[in-house]
């Protein structure tokens, strides 16, 4: 799950990283009040789970409370890469002398965490990595010992930070790594980390993503979840143990297994259709799971056909067919359903399905083609 800037900043501050403070507003009026309290220049920043908010007009400087109100008015309700802005952070302006990028994430290749830093802060780090890789400093973290003080210092020296500022930089680097570990993050990032005109370090932004698999260790994070930011059906899916991702097409997919679900989406596309979703019902494909999957898929008004693709492994095909039949009784589905059932007891299952009036096919390709045809015919 993603955290908002203001939530991540609180976690950073708790580990001793100097952050810029500020407060969150949901209305222009609140933004004005916060700006008045802050005095002086403030920055009004969209709180959305998306990058690129600067370019999208989601960050504005305001010299007066009135300007802050106007800025909030402009930003709230803005759509940034498909995310509607519902909150803004109103934070004091800073006197920026130098900007840096500092982040911690997983280096999948090495199966180790890695600290990434750059003297180019406040810009898209992926762009820097692509175009000016020599401006990026990377330090792999020992998986058993964590980040060493010497490593944190070395990153600072490599960025050309003046010696009297290196200790402060190293402390922030270690604190960021500690936050990353303590909170089971998959990403912890400060962009930009700045040196102010007065020579102080300040984290002007804060970004964190948390490992969903580790949420059991962090029950408090449930409260930080911004359900407004998440697609409602994806939230429902998570609660029923189904992996679901909303897409833009019209063929609803219900599949067992993540790899097979992706391959099914690909097959739909290959046959000229567009998948409406990724959906992995998980291992069992019980009537309950299938019913829940029907509900998720049919909640999308664009869906014009449903493609069910089940490879019966340990689960028997006849049991799956039974589950589909039961689910159909519980959830009214008005669009055509194409079912492909393979593997254990597939023949028995296909018979049951055919008997219940569904289009049953044997191969995934046939099923995808059939679903696309049915959708276009509908």
């Amino acid at each position, binding site marked *: 799950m993603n955290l908002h800037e203001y939530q991540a900043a609180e976690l950073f501050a708790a580990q001793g990283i100097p952050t810029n403070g500020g407060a969150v507003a949901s209305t222009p009026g609140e933004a004005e009040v916060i700006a008045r309290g802050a005095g002086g220049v403030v920055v009004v920043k969209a709180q959305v789970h998306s990058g690129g908010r600067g370019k999208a007009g989601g960050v504005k400087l305001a010299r007066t409370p009135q300007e802050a109100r106007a800025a909030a008015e402009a930003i709230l309700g803005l759509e940034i890469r498909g995310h509607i802005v519902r909150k803004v952070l109103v934070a004091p302006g800073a006197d920026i002398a130098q900007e840096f990028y500092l982040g911690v994430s997983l280096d999948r290749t090495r199966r180790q965490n890695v600290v990434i830093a750059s003297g180019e802060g406040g810009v898209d780090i992926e762009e820097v990595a692509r175009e000016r890789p020599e401006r990026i400093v990377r330090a792999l973290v020992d998986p058993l010992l964590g980040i060493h003080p010497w490593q944190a210092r070395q990153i600072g020296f490599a960025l050309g930070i003046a010696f009297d500022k290196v200790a402060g930089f190293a402390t922030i680097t270690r604190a960021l790594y500690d936050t990353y*570990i303590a909170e089971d993050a*998959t990403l912890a990032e400060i962009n930009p980390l700045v040196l102010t005109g007065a020579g102080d370090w300040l984290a002007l932004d804060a970004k964190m993503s948390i490992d969903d698999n580790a949420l059991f260790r962090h029950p408090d994070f449930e409260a930080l979840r911004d359900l407004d930011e998440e697609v409602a059906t994806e939230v429902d899916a998570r609660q029923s143990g189904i992996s679901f991702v909303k897409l833009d097409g019209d063929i609803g997919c219900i599949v067992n297994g993540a790899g097979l679900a992706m391959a099914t989406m690909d097959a739909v596309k290959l046959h000229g259709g567009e998948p409406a979703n990724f959906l992995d019902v998980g291992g069992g494909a019980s009537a309950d799971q299938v019913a829940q999957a029907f509900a998720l898929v049919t909640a999308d008004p664009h869906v014009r056909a449903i493609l069910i693709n089940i490879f019966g492994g340990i689960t028997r095909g006849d049991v799956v067919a039974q589950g589909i039949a039961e689910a159909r009784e519980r959830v009214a589905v008005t669009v055509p359903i194409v079912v492909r059932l393979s593997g254990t007891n597939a023949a028995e299952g296909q018979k049951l399905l055919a008997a219940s009036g569904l289009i049953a096919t044997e191969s995934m*390709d046939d099923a995808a083609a059939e679903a696309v045809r049915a959708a276009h015919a509908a």
Partner: protein
Amino acid sequence: MSILVDRDTRVIVQGITGREGSFHTTQMVEYGTNVVSGVTPGGRGKTVAEAPVFDTVADAVAATEPNVAIIFVPARFAPDAIYEAVDNGLPLVICITEGIPVADMVPVYAHVKQVGARLLGPNCPGTITPGAAKVGIMPGFIHTPGPVGVVSRSGTLTYEVVDALSRAGIGQSSAVGIGGDPVIGTSFVDVLALFEADPATDAIVMIGEIGGDDEEHAARFIEEHVTKPVVGFIAGQTAPPGKRMGHAGAIISGGSGTAAEKMAALEAAGVRVVDRPSAVPGAIQAALLAVGQPVSR
């Protein structure tokens, strides 16, 4: 011959008395796998599918000399189970468990490497050498002995491909699921090296998916070290960036890890990349014919 498991494999099942553990133990034994023991704290004296249960891996090792561990314990206890297995000398540990936090797997990976053991998974279906041993959760009946090595990040998609191969009369030497998590113990490269060295394998099917760069590393490895023909398929050609496709590891982040990149890298390395699972058997048949090998043994 085969890779990872064979007729001499002596399996210990960690979490053997749990729902998953006991079910799959029975399935493995029915397939003919030699399950010599199981572990569940407090389970001493019980049996599952005639395998004796012990309180600790140490006790089970002393009494039954297993050489492969398979883990079915829940995610929050699975890292401890992996440590227990490798610290008690198990050279190969197969972790089926899904949902282990990455922060736990990073030190596990380092430790396993350090002690010189091999971890397969987590969040994987395990491995099977058709006709010899099944140490995993795949449906055994779809597999046929033969010359094709299968390696995959996925579960049911692998069954799909294996089933297609078997229906086309093409048997498998071994099929290995490496798992769909960001941190896994055994990579494509590791398995490719094993298949390349395995005299029973004449051709290889590699089933990748979006996320990470293990497929790109595999491509480089294939180019430099693999002489046997390789057929590849990458799932997730239509997946959008930034969204996790079920598997924790299946996510296109920062524009990298796309199916297109992986397919291009594999093609550049001489892999025959197909666009759908059903095209795998044909490609393999062509590849085997090209090197003059029969499709079944």
